[in-house]
């Protein structure tokens, strides 16, 4: 690797996690939530997305490319750390470990999820309410999706906290503490939206 790219890479990694990946996560969870309003509402929302101009380019620029960079560099970051919770059981050290753990879980979940939905769509299936209902006919998949979605949301919420530190937005311990509470609320609210959507398909 070229010399002195680390600073730029780490900042890019932090930025991409929020914009666009984090924003896309919120958008995705919101669309899912429409399933709680009935099958037709959900299918209409999904079809509306298909009218986005040059959708495939938007998908690559907004989702796949940022996600690939974030995932590959994230794996590198996760495996350079030497976790030491046994000796230093502080709250932030737990968050540090969980951020890396949920990142890996989310990546495994996403690979599976993209294979099951987006790739199948490319191979000719239609993404709609029935597709999801069929996936969730298997209780193991319900558990897998709950773990995956909660991991992704935790990773986003806690990532938002460290984004604020990494870009020097929250400097004082007090502002960082308040940000902890703000991101906790983000975690709880998004988790409610995400998990209730899963049970709408069951």
């Amino acid at each position: 690797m070229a010399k002195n790219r680390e600073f730029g890479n780490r900042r890019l990694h932090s930025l991409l996690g929020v914009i666009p990946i984090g924003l896309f996560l919120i958008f995705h969870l919101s669309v899912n939530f429409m399933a709680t309003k009935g099958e037709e509402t959900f299918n209409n929302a999904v079809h509306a997305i298909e009218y986005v101009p040059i959708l495939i380019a938007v998908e690559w620029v907004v989702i796949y490319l940022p996600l690939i960079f974030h995932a590959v560099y994230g794996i590198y970051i996760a495996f350079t750390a030497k976790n030491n919770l046994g000796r230093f059981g502080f709250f932030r050290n737990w968050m540090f470990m969980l951020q890396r753990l949920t990142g890996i879980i989310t990546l495994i979940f996403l690979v599976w999820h993209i294979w099951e939905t987006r790739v199948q769509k490319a191979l000719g299936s239609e993404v709609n309410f029935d597709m999801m209902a069929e996936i969730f006919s298997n209780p193991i998949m319900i558990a897998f999706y709950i773990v995956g979605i909660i991991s992704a949301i935790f990773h986003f919420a806690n990532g938002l906290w460290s984004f604020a530190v990494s870009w020097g937005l929250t400097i004082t311990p007090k502002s960082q503490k308040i940000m902890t509470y703000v991101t906790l609320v983000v975690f709880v609210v998004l988790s409610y939206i995400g998990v209730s959507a899963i049970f709408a398909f069951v």
Partner: protein
Amino acid sequence: MSETKTVRFIITRQDTPDSAPYDEEFELPYRPNMNVISALMEIRRNPVTKSGKKTTPIAWDMNCLEEVCGACSMVINGKPRQSCTALVDQLEQPVRLAPMRTFPVVRDLQVDRSRMFDNLKKVKAWIPIDGTYNLGPGPRMPERKRQWAYELAKCMTCGVCLEACPNVNDGSNFIGPQPLSQVRLFNAHPTGAMNRAERLNAIMTDGGLANCGNSQNCVQSCPKGIPLTTSIAALNRDTAIQSFRNFFGSDQV
């Protein structure tokens, strides 16, 4: 006749930098107000293990004996700290001593902390004041700012923050919290601020500031209570601005 009170130590020893570490247990007569160093001195006087085996005295570093030099840092009951202020009365028995393995072990509890001094050179943690002629007095520092900066100046380069950091390890090139906070200190000084950009650019290189993963163990472990994570966050802001200056261009001050 009452049995004499004793204290027990389990010490991780290592004969050479490359040899395998091993544990030895010692039992010493208790004395009031003992600290870890006085216990180590007692063992040095009579290097016999608990089982009665004669052994070599334990090697460790020490200097000031009042927690301002940082030399006697080691891992005591799992926590990195200074052995001079580790009072035996306040420690759980048996007391376990081990070297700070983040650094290369020289022998027993003695480690080579020179990477921290190299880091200070790397980030230019000094204020250049020499000229070919008398440059005269520099700008004055407001008293309030001096008092604030003094907190950052308490760093004794002990290495506890590096030992506590999960991102400082043999698989990573992270320089750790200690030199970073010093950059904030020297950038805060009115004369030091004249070389601000140089220091910021130095911590934006590989192994620098960006490697912080916000576990915040450093600020929890610092024996001097230095606001290390506040320094890191402040430098995150400064380097963000510096990187815009570098990329989009601005007057180089």
